[in-house]
């Protein structure tokens, strides 16, 4: 079968995804838009009434917003490290899932920084970050690193999209509005697949794959340093850089598996995304679970064993006020993937997806337990008559904005899948359908 013929068959298979949106799909999009609007209302509420409407106060000055920021930046690792690394290692099985991984990266990279802005008291003065930026401040490092990361990841995704955009442009049977056709034509920038173009594309993709890995590691280390350069007992830790990087990729694999599950169901990709893919990403998740558990253990073991006065105070809070959350995040969140992926009998698509979902929740809580309890146990004792000022609990405004952020993530993901096939069409012809390179049998 010739190249064009095989991709025509594939394009015919994926075209409906772009051409129509079913009633259920429309309902889903309406629901998401509704939640996003609720988020915007909460933002309006906060901007008009001041930060007093949040649960943050003078002791716990950072709350759920910062947790969401770290969380979304973390899942952006799905694309950067997973698709970048798999590309460099020529793992053939990656092909049906890398598009999803890259979409996760871009979308979460756009949402993550939004959350840090919600935490800023004077949004109107945001330009000061550029006008009066000081390179000595880790926040400036963050601004530079994140903007570089967004740029690099968009470029990486675009390079991967290029061949599909050209195919969609040349596919006459596609029944989509004219603006979409025009968009494909412009975005394909005249790519026709000549040998010279192919070589150039391959070279640039290789370079960008390496770059996004490096940039992503830097971005997440910088993010960790925002915490570890301070003197706070729970944050002032040398392993925070690598710890955050591992936690980030870990949560990224979790989100990737959940995304694979839903898109497989909704767009009927059972033929392309098989148990093999779940097991393989699951194995990556298992390795990361072990690393994450190891880092978490050594972080808290040294604090507890050495038991400096302030560390002791922090550990006491973690194991008293936050006991169940701590167990859920740092025990269950590590053990479940180890067990589910580790035992053959448990290794089903449904089980792996449930484990991945638990990982996502656990990793969000892990960040919460890093941010909030530390701020509740400062060097000087909190002597406060108002309970809300001593203990943090998020308000409806913060929860609405969190829900809005998650909904926006799902919405952009859904819309992106309506623009471009969620599976890299141009690569699939090389994909052997039988389970050849599965990591665990």
């Amino acid at each position, binding site marked *: 079968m010739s190249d064009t013929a095989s991709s025509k068959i594939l394009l015919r298979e994926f075209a409906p995804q772009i051409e129509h949106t079913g009633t259920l799909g429309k309902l889903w999009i309406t629901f998401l838009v509704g939640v996003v609007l609720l988020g915007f209302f909460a933002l309006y509420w906060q901007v008009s*009434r*001041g*930060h*007093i409407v949040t649960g*943050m*106060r*003078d*002791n716990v*000055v*950072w709350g759920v917003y910062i947790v969401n920021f770290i969380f979304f930046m973390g899942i952006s690792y799905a694309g950067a490290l997973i698709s970048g690394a798999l590309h460099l290692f020529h793992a053939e099985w990656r092909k049906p899932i890398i598009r999803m991984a890259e979409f996760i990266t871009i979308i979460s990279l756009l949402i993550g920084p939004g959350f840090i802005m919600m*935490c*800023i*008291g*004077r949004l109107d*003065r*945001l330009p*000061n*970050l550029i*006008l*009066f*930026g*000081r390179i*000595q*401040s*880790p*926040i*400036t490092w963050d*601004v530079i690193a994140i903007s570089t990361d967004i740029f690099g990841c968009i470029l990486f995704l675009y390079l991967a999209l290029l061949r599909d955009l050209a195919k969609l442009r040349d596919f006459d049977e596609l029944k989509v509005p004219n603006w979409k056709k025009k968009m494909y034509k412009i975005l394909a920038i005249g790519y026709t697949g000549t040998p010279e173009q192919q070589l150039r594309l391959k070279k640039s993709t290789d370079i960008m794959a390496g770059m996004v890995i490096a940039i992503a590691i830097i971005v997440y280390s910088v993010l960790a340093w*925002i915490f570890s*350069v*301070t*003197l*706070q007992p729970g*944050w002032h830790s040398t392993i925070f850089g690598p710890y955050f990087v591992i936690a980030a990729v870990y949560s990224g694999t979790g989100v990737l598996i959940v995304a694979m599950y839903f898109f497989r169901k909704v767009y009927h990709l059972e033929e392309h995304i098989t148990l093999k893919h779940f097991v393989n990403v699951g194995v990556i998740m298992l390795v990361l679970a072990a690393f994450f558990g190891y880092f978490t253990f050594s972080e808290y073991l040294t604090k507890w064993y050495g038991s400096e006065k302030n560390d002791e105070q922090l550990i006491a809070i973690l194991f008293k006020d936050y006991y169940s959350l701590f167990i859920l995040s740092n025990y269950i969140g590590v053990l479940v993937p180890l067990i589910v992926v580790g035992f053959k009998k448990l290794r089903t698509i449904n089980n792996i997806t449930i484990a991945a979902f638990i990982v996502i929740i656990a990793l969000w809580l892990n960040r919460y337990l890093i941010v909030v309890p530390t*701020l509740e146990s*400062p*060097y*000087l*004792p*909190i*002597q*406060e*008559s*108002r309970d809300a000022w001593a203990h943090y609990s998020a308000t409806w405004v913060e929860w609405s904005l969190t829900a809005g952020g998650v909904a926006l993530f799902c919405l952009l993901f859904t819309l992106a899948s309506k623009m471009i096939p969620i599976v890299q069409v141009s690569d699939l012809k090389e994909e052997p359908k039988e389970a050849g390179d599965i990591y665990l049998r």
Partner: protein
Amino acid sequence: MENKKKDDNNSRRNFLKLGLLAGAGTVATGALIATGKNSGESGEKIKVLTTSGEVMEVDKNFLTLAPVGRVESHEGIPGRKFVMVIDLAKCKNARKCVEECQKGHNLPKDQEFMKVYLMQDSEKTAPYWFPKPCYHCDNPQCVSVCPVGATYKRSDGIVLIDNERCIGCKFCMTGCPYSTRVFSWKAEEAYESDQPYSPEKSVPGVEGTVSKCDFCPDLAREGKLPYCASACPMGVIYFGDIDEDVVTNGTETFKFSELIRDRSGYKYLDNLGTRPNVYYLPPVDRQFPFERGLDGLDEEVTKRFENTPYVKNLKNKETL
């Protein structure tokens, strides 16, 4: 002995002169404003230069110094290096420092630049009252982490905040290990003021930004002590110049180095490497029994100490 006393007096005079000199400097540049706000004449006349070039005599009470602007406030007061000494032996939680500071900085009731803690280092050690201003560290974490340079260290040792530039990211609040900084969580009536903003006064406050104790450089320019120091009925708080080696609480003046040497002065949590400019004198030979600090407090303030081990113990004993 007599020599030493003479030294002390000299230094004090020098310190108080500082304000007048600063005043004279600004008269020449025409930064004094005559206002009708202050009632009653002091009888002391000061010569000022009007904009038209005429020399005029105005009563001292009708003059106030124009607040230092945002740009000028980056420079410290020349030749100064401010220091504070807090005598824990004399503090009985009278809370006048807190109140006067709030009044002076036009703060809403739930914002305090000066806080008084009930401290007890460990179970068997004696409790003591612990007033805590900003330490104006020589290695300030808050200044290091600020992304926009809204908080800065001056040549006179003072760490200030420019509330017109602060973006409210609160990084400095997590950076400060002494929980010194406060955030303006909402628009307050107290912030509605027609006086021009000056970082040296921290007035008027700005919603969505961070503020803190500023060592009152506006008062230092006038040769006055910070609000907390002059308000304290016990004379707990000494303020002065570390280079001139003198500190005063308004009634007593000491050579700073001798006071620290003779009374074993120390800095709180100095091991963190922040190099504070506030020194404490340990609570030995106390002038008041500690418990007196718990009497006559507002209900709100009493509640603050309810969860401290000391007060809990006290309650247990009462019920027995």
